């Protein structure tokens, strides 16, 4: 220890302090930092600092074969990896003109919605924990683990499923999987009243979360806010419905919206989406047995696979918002350029900086969790 490092610093003669909120901070989601200037408890200025989880995905993908990237892509967003796989596969399929078999599309929907469910349960828990309530977090994580068991059974991996490949999916569902899925959904459904008691109708939480980090609809549009955060401002927009992909246009689901765009509304939207995901999954359970056919379109030998030159822009509704992938091929065996636009790259930087400015320091964590900002998606 060097004593001089622990002497009082020459701070400006005021009660304003600059502090690092993160990266090693229990209130931060992932490995991310906010540098904030506080005046008492109030934050007067904030600046996001990312890059702690930077791995250079876009560069790495340019160095790997098209097929090799399927192992890499789920790592981009750890809590919600499935949309990454699907989006990448869809982009390659677009470039190659591959027709994905119906059954594969339904299986992808199954995977995506399971992943959304898992991510939302995780986010609830996180949001609750940042307001000092740890039980919902314990429950949310434990219930999510039941979904991870399903992932493990379906895809062979708990978190990183690596289930999609360009052309379709790698394995069909195991025997009786749908029954177990249905049972798990019933269980999660039955847990919702418990969550309501503990969280959504708990005045402690309601009062903390309301009016925290409000975003108006105009601001949301101005700042490129998407996903549940946008729907929490009252705009019913969902890529699944308005720019449909896979078989979402054959599925019935509502788009939950809330007002007025504060942390409370955002979390409520997620609760609504949880119900809708369960609803979609139940439709998948009903329809999937009737959809036969292959689960994968034939693809060339992955070691000698030149994807035709071109570009593809794929948009997907991930649990965090609009996820889009821009993939350029120069006709080679590796992607020429991949650009990943994670929804959190908006939410965790400019929007978060904007929202925490003026709030009290104890709300920073819950604003970040309520935005469901996912740092690995920002850093890539």
């Amino acid at each position: 220890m060097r004593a001089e490092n622990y002497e009082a610093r020459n701070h400006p003669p005021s009660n304003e302090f600059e502090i690092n909120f993160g990266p090693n901070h229990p209130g931060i989601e992932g490995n991310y930092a906010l540098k904030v200037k506080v005046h008492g408890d109030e934050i007067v200025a904030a600046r996001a600092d990312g890059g702690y989880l930077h791995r250079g995905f876009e560069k790495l993908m340019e160095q790997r074969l098209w097929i090799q990237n399927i192992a890499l892509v789920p790592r981009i967003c750890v809590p919600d990896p499935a949309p990454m796989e699907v989006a990448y596969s869809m982009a390659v399929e677009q470039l190659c003109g591959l027709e994905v078999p119906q059954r594969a599309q339904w299986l992808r929907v199954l995977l995506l919605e399971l992943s959304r469910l898992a991510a939302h349960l995780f986010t609830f828990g996180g949001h609750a924990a940042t307001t000092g309530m740890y039980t919902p977090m314990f429950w949310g994580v434990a219930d999510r683990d039941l979904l991870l068991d399903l992932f493990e059974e379906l895809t062979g991996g708990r978190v990183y499923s690596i289930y999609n490949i360009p052309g379709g999916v790698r394995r069909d569902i195991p025997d009786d999987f749908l029954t177990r899925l249905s049972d798990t959904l019933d269980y999660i459904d039955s847990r919702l009243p418990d969550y309501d008691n503990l969280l959504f109708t708990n005045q402690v939480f309601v009062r903390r979360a309301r009016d925290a980090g409000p975003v108006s609809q105009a601001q949301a549009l101005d700042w490129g806010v998407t996903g549940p955060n946008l729907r929490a401002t009252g705009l019913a927009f969902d890529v699944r419905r308005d720019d449909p992909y896979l078989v979402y246009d054959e599925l019935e689901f509502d788009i939950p919206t809330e007002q007025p765009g504060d942390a409370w509304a955002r979390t409520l939207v997620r609760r609504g989406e949880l119900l809708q995901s369960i609803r979609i999954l139940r439709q998948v359970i009903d329809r999937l047995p009737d959809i036969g056919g292959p689960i994968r379109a034939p693809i060339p030998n992955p070691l000698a696979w030149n994807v035709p030159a071109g570009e593809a822009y794929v948009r997907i509704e991930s649990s965090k918002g609009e996820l889009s992938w821009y993939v350029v091929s120069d006709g080679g065996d590796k992607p020429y350029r991949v650009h990943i636009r994670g929804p959190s790259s908006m939410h965790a930087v400019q929007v978060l900086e904007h929202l925490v400015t003026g709030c009290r320091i104890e709300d920073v964590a819950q604003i970040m969790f309520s935005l469901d900002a996912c740092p690995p998606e920002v850093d890539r």
Partner: protein
Amino acid sequence: MNDAHLPVERLSIILGEVKEVRVTQKGPRRTRLDVAADALPALLELLKGRAGFVHLSAISCVDWPDDAQFELVYHLWSYELNLLVSAHTRIDRDPGVYVSVYDIYHPAGFFERDIHEMYGVFFEGAPDMEKFILTEWDGPPPMRKEFDSEGWVNDHFDWQDYRPDWLLELEAQGGGVMIPPDEQRFSRRGIEDNDDAG
């Protein structure tokens, strides 16, 4: 939102007013526009103001060193038309300077900052061109094609030298490592060829 025309038609009417823009229909909800660099900001303004393209989904940068150009792609979404427009433009790789569209689209702030640190393209008029991810990186902009990540890694890091018992046994019998992983990497083929040429 009462729409006398199909979305695509409405868009094409607007685009008809802009000179020198090439329109390619890439799908039912995807339109590609190619436009000169100096006309792009005006085009974006028009798209936002007249066609409801209020959402800037992303700005992608593609490096084309052979053409000595960067390609900038602005992906815009209209909540009214449910239509995605990708406006492509090319700028010179050197000096790699372009104008910021932050005034039109605030999300551009993040993307321009990202492109600046990853490619070294400077956006004039952007509010913030400071590094965000690579604050502690002093190498060249890593996403440029000429930056060889693997070479850099090999210069800066060592790899594990495993000596498990089974390997020692095999070596004693005359076996052992025959093909190290690097020798047969398909993804490395093109790069080695270039090295040979250079």
